[in-house]
């Protein structure tokens, strides 16, 4: 890894230089919600944001996404994408994207996802946890790869980690904006990280989590939550690792159709429905439990399917807390 320093006075120029790499999206605050939006000016960015409602997955697996276009009876690949720069992505979301990579770049490669990933630049930014974050418990609080540049806040600027060839190119093109790191900077960086590590209020006990959950298949805790959960599927929509999709064809006019995919949720009754009206997850209990199993599945090559971003807690209208549910299930076993 290469480490350089971006002094605060050069920050704006650095930001502006990113525009030549693609359309820049960054977290913006609207009322009480943050979201990744197109930005022109540094002043628009909410640098100290906690989490956006939709994670950056929305750029790669879009809520509604054209896959194919029907032209004269044949499908053609829908248009590719313009290059984008995602500015200010938190570490947990970078981990989230890496989990999606496993799925979408695994054989056979999803061409839409791949094209968009290749056409994107990821610039990470350090953050401070709020009451919902539990990424530290999952080891996703620090990203070692999956970004091009990562900016860590210093009192007088940013410590920049260069994480890819593209990141090197960006730094190279802006060489005059960067400085070498001093001992003082390293000390500040370490202090920030230490402060951050000590600020987590929520902790997930992941000790034997998969096995514990599997053993608790019939736990009464699931039944209790079945009654609280509204089955709205919000938790799926906002999760950086949820990626179930539904497909349908839409006619634009008498001659042209498109094949579109859109987010689906395992909380919808139709999710497990097959021919003959048989449903493999007929009750809300089945569906609620399924989500926890899916999120807590440990893939040896990608880790858990949860990065601890806290979105499902913040945006659950029933105020159901992910970690609390898991803790209660665990307690029920003892």
């Amino acid at each position, binding site marked *: 890894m290469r480490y350089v320093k971006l002094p605060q006075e050069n920050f704006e120029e650095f930001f502006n230089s990113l525009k030549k790499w693609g359309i820049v999206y960054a977290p913006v605050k609207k009322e009480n919600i943050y979201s990744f939006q197109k930005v022109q000016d540094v002043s628009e960015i909410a640098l100290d944001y906690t989490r956006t409602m939709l994670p950056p997955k929305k750029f790669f697996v879009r809520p509604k996404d054209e*896959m*194919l276009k*029907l032209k004269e*009876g*044949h*499908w053609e*690949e829908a248009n590719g994408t313009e290059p984008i720069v995602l500015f200010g992505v938190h570490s947990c979301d970078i981990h989230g994207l890496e989990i999606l990579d496993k*799925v*979408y770049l*695994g054989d*056979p*490669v*999803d*061409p839409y996802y791949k094209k968009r990933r290749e056409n994107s630049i990821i610039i990470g930014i350090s953050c401070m946890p709020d009451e919902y974050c539990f990424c530290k418990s999952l080891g996703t609080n620090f990203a070692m790869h999956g970004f091009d540049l990562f900016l860590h806040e210093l009192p007088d600027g940013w410590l920049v980690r260069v994480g890819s060839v593209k990141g090197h190119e960006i730094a190279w093109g802006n060489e005059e904006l960067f400085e070498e790191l001093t001992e003082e900077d390293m000390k500040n960086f370490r202090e920030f990280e230490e402060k951050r590590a000590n600020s987590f209020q929520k902790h997930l006990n992941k000790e034997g*989590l*998969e*096995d514990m*959950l*599997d053993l608790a*298949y019939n736990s009464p805790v699931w039944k209790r939550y079945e009654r609280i959960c509204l089955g709205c599927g919000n938790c799926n929509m906002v999760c950086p690792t*949820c*990626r*179930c*999709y*539904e*497909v*349908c*064809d839409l*006619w634009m006019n008498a001659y042209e*159709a498109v*094949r579109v*995919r859109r987010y*689906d949720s*395992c909380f919808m009754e*139709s*999710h*497990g*429905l*097959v*021919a*003959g009206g*048989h449903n*493999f997850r007929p009750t809300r209990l089945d569906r609620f439990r399924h989500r*926890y*199993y*899916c999120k*807590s*599945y*440990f893939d040896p090559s990608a880790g858990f399917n949860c990065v601890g971003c806290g979105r499902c807690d913040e945006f659950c209208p029933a105020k159901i807390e992910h970690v609390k549910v898991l803790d209660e299930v665990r307690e029920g076993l003892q």
Partner: protein
Amino acid sequence: MTFQTHDARILEVKELTSREKLFTLRFVDPEINRKFKYKPGQFVVVDIRGFGEFPISLCSTPTREGYFQLCVRRVGRMTKYMHNLKEGDIVGIRGPYGNGFPMEKMEGSTLILVAGGLGMAPLRSVLWYALDSGKYEKIYLFYGTKAYEDILFRDEVIHLLKHGEDMNCHVKLAYEVESPSCIYLEKGYSPRVCKGVVTDLFRGENFDVENTYALICGPPVMYKFVIKELLDRKLSPGRIYMTLERRMRCGVGKCGHCIVGTSTSIKYVCKDGPVFTYWDALSTRGLI
């Protein structure tokens, strides 16, 4: 081009029952035709352009080249479109997908095919493959059907009831609804045809469990009973294969619909299956 389909022409449409039609297809591009290789138990995704896609098992056998067949039950929107298609019409096909049955591994063994209703479709591929290749010790087909009118591939089943023994193929049929045709069949082929459910067909049969594989496909309720029957006879869980159905959209492990299991074992029916052994079912909750 993961989701692009290839043009296939419908060569023939045959009405099998009031709900099921058999479609015989061939790719328009001869090159793709030649390259299209599949295994019994695999499936394709059929694309009716501008209307949608749906997964269907291949019910023909790769031992007969130049065409492939799909048996489609009309249950909803897409399958209704399919049923409206005629000879000469074009559909899109992508695949084959899924793992299929391990036909080579089972060579030299006895195969017990247990089919319930539409489960006959993928097992017909196995049946024909086994008959064509002649590499299997003995083949049993236990087929449970609702009524005479619902028997899929009725001509073939009756032909095998008549002549199967000559090919080491032992066919048994259980029906639930009595009718003159069933009684006629029962008279001719008793005790191989009887009123009852598919597990009734195991009565009086003995297998060398060391050298037998069971292959099951049918409605969800069937698996539990059939598996119990097989386990009672001491067939090892590793010798019990079953092919499963889940809602599928992508067929290649992306859309998430077919995910089953719990935190310790998650499986995609589309790419880890649709063929699983009973060991898989024991370690993956919700599989059956």
